[in-house]
């Protein structure tokens, strides 16, 4: 127990206390600013008022203890005024809110001075205190176009969970290091246990220990996490002040504040986020009269939302302002000599938008006090990319702009794919990996083009980089060329390339640390990591590899060459039969012909679900049947073999891929047809061979054809088509669009819901047409129309026209 009287101004304990106070106060000020703006929008919100009162009261209490008279006086004044409001003696109006915000600003200034000098600077605060206590004119409550900033229950829940303690970061890091050491020691110990042939009871209790270590590692990594709410807290205040300054009315919303992010990461996106929000207010939102002229609501909306998607956090800032104009951007770029008119003409619309990321670019016609601070979108992009994130633009000219920041879950722990090249291991951030394929798989074709290489995967072309070449190493002779794999990497928006590696190892959760400066300077590596085996591994910088290889990995303008792909497939079919060996979910080693495997997919366990008595998997936008009798439980991810017969896909869950071998000639066939076609000997061990024919047969009826025919509905005036017909069609395996929907694809069939006797106005060349009639009776024997509630006749007619699946 430390007695307060022992705390001299110069004591070490005092410094600690002061630091804690400053850190805590900075947090409170950010939070209180947001809360006050929310409360201003809804002065009747008693809970919000109480929350603000408590925050100010906390500052007052701590400052009194530390003998900071100015801070105490200021917080006391704010507390007093808020208390008057609580007691109903004073109305909540703009004067009060501005006054309290003024006090918070002054407190912030004082804290900055305190952190620099360690003593409270002398000064007079009567101005801000006077402004708060001053005249109480009976003006109408200030109308701010504010909307509840977050749900009230959300806010009070946060306050209740606000009990926390401060821990110095070095201590936290040392705990993390300690846990990593324990994990390494555990792995070493586990290996020794296995080799020593210890008895089962020892192994069982070691496993228990091992599990709790894993749990501990998990908790420790969570210690670094913080709710993204903290990042959003200062935004309402910024929006309010700026909107007021610029005479704009803005409703500000946040959502997804419960998403958690690494603290260090949070620091890195704080400024970019604020900058984007400022930009939205300054440039995005039009002046009131322009909004009226454009037929928009006078009150603009800016929303900031966060959500977790896989290993990434997506933070979106969306406004309903004027959006970006590609032409204006180009003109601006030419004017500021960032590019020539000739270059500008060659730019795709997307590239034109990306001009805002060019250094030295500013979209505002004149530099305003708000955005023209020398921080541009280029800095935003650089900051976000520095932490492994990407910035995406979703622009609707005239209707608004959404800027999406995608950042990896944590700076320190990422999911990494381990690959081998030149006889050593490297890690690739899993977030940047789009797909993994075997280099000599059927879906891959590699062409030599004038010294360069190009990989074509299912008609899509990727520049091919060989990791050994980039690293300047020779291939390891011990590597089997059948193991070579292509990792399709997407380092950033609109870029992708194929990275050829000697083999794929596995993937691991990796603690990433920065490498020494001279190693980072190579531009090839993003850091080092120590996987469970205790040998350091370099994390590849997927963007830096591109720069080193000097390859344009932009996806725009790449052609899709289906003919050539078909050719490649035919060529691959002539090759020897290969067998993919894997361990199934019950730990049995089994094999399947490699040629029926489209690829190995890694999905979160959540992607599997049970429907109509069958296990299905959702992969991207598609749903595929899974060969499993029950849902595999548990968290984490799951590997699925994608079997593809040219028409449909079936997923087969496996524990891990073991190897790819030549299929031996001697197969001992099974007695009866079933999942197992027979047994082969691979390296002296029996391996059960999966029969893909039998497997596909089991699921053939339910497997969706990959190319689902497109139906277009025309003349759906009363919505019947959309509401009644479309669901049936979708069930039956068709895709449905309405006339007028944006769709580049030519429909396979047109369904006309036109009234009897009227011509269908949307007939387009040779697209087959089916007309639906509303009366049950046909007009005559020649009547080719179909009664709209005759499901079977309709589906039959569709199948005759386009040959889709019937349910």
């Amino acid at each position, binding site marked *: 127990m430390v007695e307060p009287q022992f705390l001299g101004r110069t004591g070490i304990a005092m410094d600690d206390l002061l630091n804690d106070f400053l850190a805590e106060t900075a947090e409170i000020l950010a939070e209180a600013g947001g809360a006050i703006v929310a409360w201003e929008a809804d002065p009747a919100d008693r809970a919000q008022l109480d929350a603000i009162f408590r925050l100010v009261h906390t500052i007052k209490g701590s400052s009194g203890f530390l003998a900071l008279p100015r801070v105490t006086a200021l917080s006391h004044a704010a507390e007093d005024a808020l208390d008057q409001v609580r007691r109903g003696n004073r109305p909540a109006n703009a004067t009060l809110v501005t006054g309290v915000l003024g006090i918070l600003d002054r407190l912030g200034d004082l804290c900055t001075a305190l952190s620099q000098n360690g003593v409270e600077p002398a000064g007079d605060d009567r101005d801000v205190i006077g402004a708060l206590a001053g005249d109480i004119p009976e003006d109408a409550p200030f109308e701010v176009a504010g909307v509840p900033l977050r749900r009230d229950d959300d806010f009070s829940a946060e306050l209740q969970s606000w009990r926390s303690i401060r821990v110095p970061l070095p201590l936290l890091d040392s705990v993390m290091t300690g846990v990593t050491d324990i994990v390494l020691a555990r792995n070493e110990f586990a290996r020794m246990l296995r080799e020593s042939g210890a008895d089962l009871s020892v192994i069982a209790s070691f496993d228990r220990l091992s599990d709790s270590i894993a749990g501990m590692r998990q908790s420790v990594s969570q210690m670094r996490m913080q709710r993204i709410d903290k990042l959003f807290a200062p935004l309402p205040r910024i929006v309010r002040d700026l909107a007021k300054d610029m005479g704009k009315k803005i409703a500000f919303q946040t959502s997804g504040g419960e998403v958690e992010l690494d603290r260090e990461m949070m620091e890195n996106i704080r400024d970019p986020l604020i900058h984007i929000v400022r930009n939205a207010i300054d440039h995005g939102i039009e002046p009131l009269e322009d909004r009226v002229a454009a037929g928009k609501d006078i009150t603009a909306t800016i929303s900031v939302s966060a959500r977790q998607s896989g290993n990434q956090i997506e933070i979106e800032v969306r406004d309903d302002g004027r959006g970006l104009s590609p032409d204006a951007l180009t003109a601006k770029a030419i004017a500021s000599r960032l590019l020539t008119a000739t270059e500008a003409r060659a730019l795709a619309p997307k590239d034109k938008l990306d001009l805002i990321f060019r250094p030295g670019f500013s979209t505002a016609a004149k530099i305003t006090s708000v955005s023209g601070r020398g921080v541009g979108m280029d800095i935003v992009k650089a900051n976000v990319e520095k932490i492994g994130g990407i910035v995406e633009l979703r622009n609707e000219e005239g209707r608004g702009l959404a800027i999406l920041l995608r950042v990896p879950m944590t700076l320190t722990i990422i999911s990494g794919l381990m690959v081998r090249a030149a006889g050593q291991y490297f890690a690739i951030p899993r977030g940047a990996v789009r797909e993994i394929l075997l280099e000599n798989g059927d879906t891959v074709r590699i062409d030599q083009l004038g010294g360069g290489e190009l990989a074509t995967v299912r008609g899509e072309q990727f520049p091919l980089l060989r990791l050994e070449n980039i690293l300047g190493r020779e291939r390891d002779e011990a590597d089997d060329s059948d193991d070579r794999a292509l990792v399709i990497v997407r380092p950033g928006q609109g870029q992708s390339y194929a990275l050829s590696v000697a083999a794929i190892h596995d993937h691991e959760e990796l603690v990433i640390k920065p490498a*020494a400066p001279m190693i980072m300077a190579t531009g090839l590596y993003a850091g080092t990591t120590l996987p469970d085996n205790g*040998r350091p591994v370099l994390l590849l910088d997927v963007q830096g590899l591109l720069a*080193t290889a000097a390859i344009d990995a932009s996806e725009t303008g790449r052609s899709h060459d289906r003919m050539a792909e078909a050719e490649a497939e035919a060529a691959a079919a002539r090759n020897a039969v290969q067998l993919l060996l894997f361990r199934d979910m019950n730990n049995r080693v089994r094999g399947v012909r490699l040629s029926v495997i489209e690829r190995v997919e890694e999905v979160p366990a959540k992607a599997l679900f049970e429907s109509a008595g069958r296990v299905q998997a959702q992969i991207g936008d598609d749903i595929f049947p899974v060969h499993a009798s029950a849902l595999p439980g548990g968290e984490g991810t799951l590997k699925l073999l994608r079997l593809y017969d040219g028409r449909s896909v079936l997923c087969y869950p496996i524990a891990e891929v073991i190897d790819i071998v030549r299929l031996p000639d001697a197969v001992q066939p099974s007695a009866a047809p079933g999942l197992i076609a027979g047994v082969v000997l691979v390296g002296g061990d029996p391996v059960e061979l999966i029969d893909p024919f039998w497997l596909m047969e089991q699921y053939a009826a339910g497997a969706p054809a990959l190319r689902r025919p497109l139906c277009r509905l025309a003349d759906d005036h009363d919505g019947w088509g959309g509401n009644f017909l479309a669901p049936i069609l979708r069930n039956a395996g068709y895709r449905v669009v309405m006339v007028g929907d944006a769709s580049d694809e030519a429909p396979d069939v047109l369904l006309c819901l036109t009234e009897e006797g009227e011509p269908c106005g949307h007939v387009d060349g040779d697209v087959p047409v089916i007309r639906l009639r509303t009366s049950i009776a046909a007009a005559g024997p020649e009547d080719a129309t179909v009664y709209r509630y005759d499901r079977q006749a309709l589906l039959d007619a569709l199948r005759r026209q386009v040959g889709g699946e019937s349910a």
Partner: protein
Amino acid sequence: MMDKLYLIARIADTRVALRSRAINSVVTVGTPVEVPAAPPHVAGLFALRSRVFTLIDPHVVIGLPAVPVAPGQRVIVVDVAEHGYALLADEIEDVCFIDAAETRIAGKLLPGWARVADAMIEHQGSSLLVVDPSNFITLPALKAA
């Protein structure tokens, strides 16, 4: 007091006295992990408990050809600018307290040594170059280019 403490070692075929202030420890390494495309004096990476260290070959820094890392070789672990490095040592002799003062280097050294050596010191009847371990971390710009 710490200022007078030196680690006597043979580095890049030369006996030197390393100022001990920056030295973290002396350990043995197994086979390091190579860093392709890194500057030539980076001999690889190795892990010591949960930290990853960058192995530096002082031979290259001095301008001599690189030497292969022998398993079990002793290295001098130093911290420079919050990064951990390890200098390959040919031989570690002793940590000792040298009371003599550091003196200005007399005579002409090879260019590589002239760059890293700070001073000379007299110890047990012989003159040793005094080197700050951090001088080995960076390569001269012309060499790195």
